[in-house]
């Protein structure tokens, strides 16, 4: 598996390079927005580990820059912060998931594989944020299924927020892991596409955007 790392901390990039298992090859590194976009387009990795706080505009510029010509490249956002505003911006720009830098190597590897397979990676914090955001929309203003989480999706997110792994969620809800993954992906898509005024207003109230 080909992995690309974009982060402005040298030491962190070195750490990643040595922390990944042998079947994941780091095919390139970058520490700034424009070089990152160019190199990613050139090397065509499967997954890009992207620090959301890059000098010169941040992670979302990289995502937007690459996706213009290569929308199939998958981004996993990494950040030292677990703050909702970073999460919102990057996920809506197209990242398939978000993990904090304090995550263990095993969890990072797992997250990379998940993203490579096309699934979404949700941290408990992100799950909580999504539940909060979508629950603030009054029911009489919902006119598209994008604005609403299904009962199942809500259940899955709640379990993620409670600290369950996908396998455990599957056992709890008597569904397969694949089903859990597809629910999570559906939620990610809703988060990316929902432009509901309420969702935006909720975010503005909390000074997230």
């Amino acid at each position, binding site marked *: 598996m080909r992995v690309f790392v974009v982060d402005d901390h040298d030491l962190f990039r070195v750490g990643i390079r040595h922390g990944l298992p042998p079947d994941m090859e780091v095919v390139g590194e970058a520490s700034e927005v424009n070089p990152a976009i160019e190199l990613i387009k050139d090397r065509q990795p499967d997954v890009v580990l992207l620090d959301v706080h890059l000098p010169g505009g941040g992670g979302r510029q990289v995502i937007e820059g690459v996706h213009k010509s290569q929308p199939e490249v998958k981004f996993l956002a990494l950040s030292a*912060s*677990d*703050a*909702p*505003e970073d999460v919102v911006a990057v996920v809506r720009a197209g990242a398939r998931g978000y993990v904090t830098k304090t995550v263990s190597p095993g969890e990072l590897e797992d997250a990379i594989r998940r993203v490579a397979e096309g699934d979404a990676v949700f941290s*408990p*914090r992100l*799950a*909580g944020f999504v*539940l*909060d955001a979508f*629950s603030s929309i009054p029911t009489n203003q919902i006119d598209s299924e994008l604005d609403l989480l299904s009962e199942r999706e809500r259940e899955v997110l*709640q379990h993620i*927020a*409670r*600290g*369950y792994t996908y396998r*455990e969620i599957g056992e709890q809800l008597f569904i397969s892991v694949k089903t859990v993954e597809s629910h999570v992906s559906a939620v990610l898509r809703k988060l990316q596409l929902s432009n509901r005024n309420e969702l935006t207003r909720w975010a503005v109230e*909390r*000074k997230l955007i």
Partner: protein
Amino acid sequence: MALLSLLAVTRGTVERPRPVWLLVAAATLWGVLTVLTQLRQRPDEPWWVTIGDAALASVALFAHEWAGTDDLIYGGYPAITVAVAAVTERRRGWLLATALAVTTLVRLQVADFAAVLSGLSQVISYFMVAGIVGWAAHVIYAADQERREAEAGRARAEERSQVAAHLHDSVLQTLALIQREPHDGDRVTMLARSQERELREWLYGPSDGPQPGLAEAVKKMAAEVDEMYRVPIEAVVVGDAPVNETTAALLAAGREAVVNAAKHTGGGASVYLEATSELVRLFVRDRGSGFSVDQVPEDRHGIRQSIRARIERVGGSARVDSIPGQGTEVRLEVPL
């Protein structure tokens, strides 16, 4: 233009007043519409405005023939365009206004020289008025912008000095402490983690002061246990609720559960709070080895009783689920 038309009609020199009124109404509406939209300061004038302007102006030029009057009611229209152009500073607007004024004059040549002179002086005075109006509007707008920017600059400077003060106080102190005892790994980790949490809270927390409420209290509780026992406790909160007797009991029971998890598993715990206006639920999940109900270690059982008692006393319910090998989850629920 409206005034002139009014004068002309009342003087009775207009044979067919209706087209005049129509034209005045149309021009007024158009003027209002364009000024309103242009006030939003778009960089270039949309093409429909230019075409609309030109169309209305052309009609105005011939209006006096339809209405059967010789009065120069059509001199007013270019003036309006000039005024709009002055306020919004669009080059196209100026060009159009000038073209219209020139065309008006050319039209007048068909009449007589005196008319041309009076028309010319009218047009010049219109331009002057428009120029003054435009300049005044611009000055007022610029002054307002400046005031706004000054205010924003002041707010930014104040915030920056607050950041500096905070950084100096806590972060630098923590770094100094760490340097003093670099070999005590545990202590270093604890100091680093507590400072990280605090800084993150401060940077990304609500900027208009802390919201007193259950959500904050739960996060604080998780942070405290995290520091005390040196295990990672992650808190996720959805919604909020006031801190009253009921929720305080929930918080206390929750703390017991979290401390219990920290003491017995060493792997940390996940705390999840879900609050609506009717119900508050708290989940504490750990990844210990779990236990089956029959072989519950003594004090975990004791803890369960204490937690349950606290919760049931305020009308809530408590539940403990445990799967050997997968950990334990405590679910607390209280009505509001």
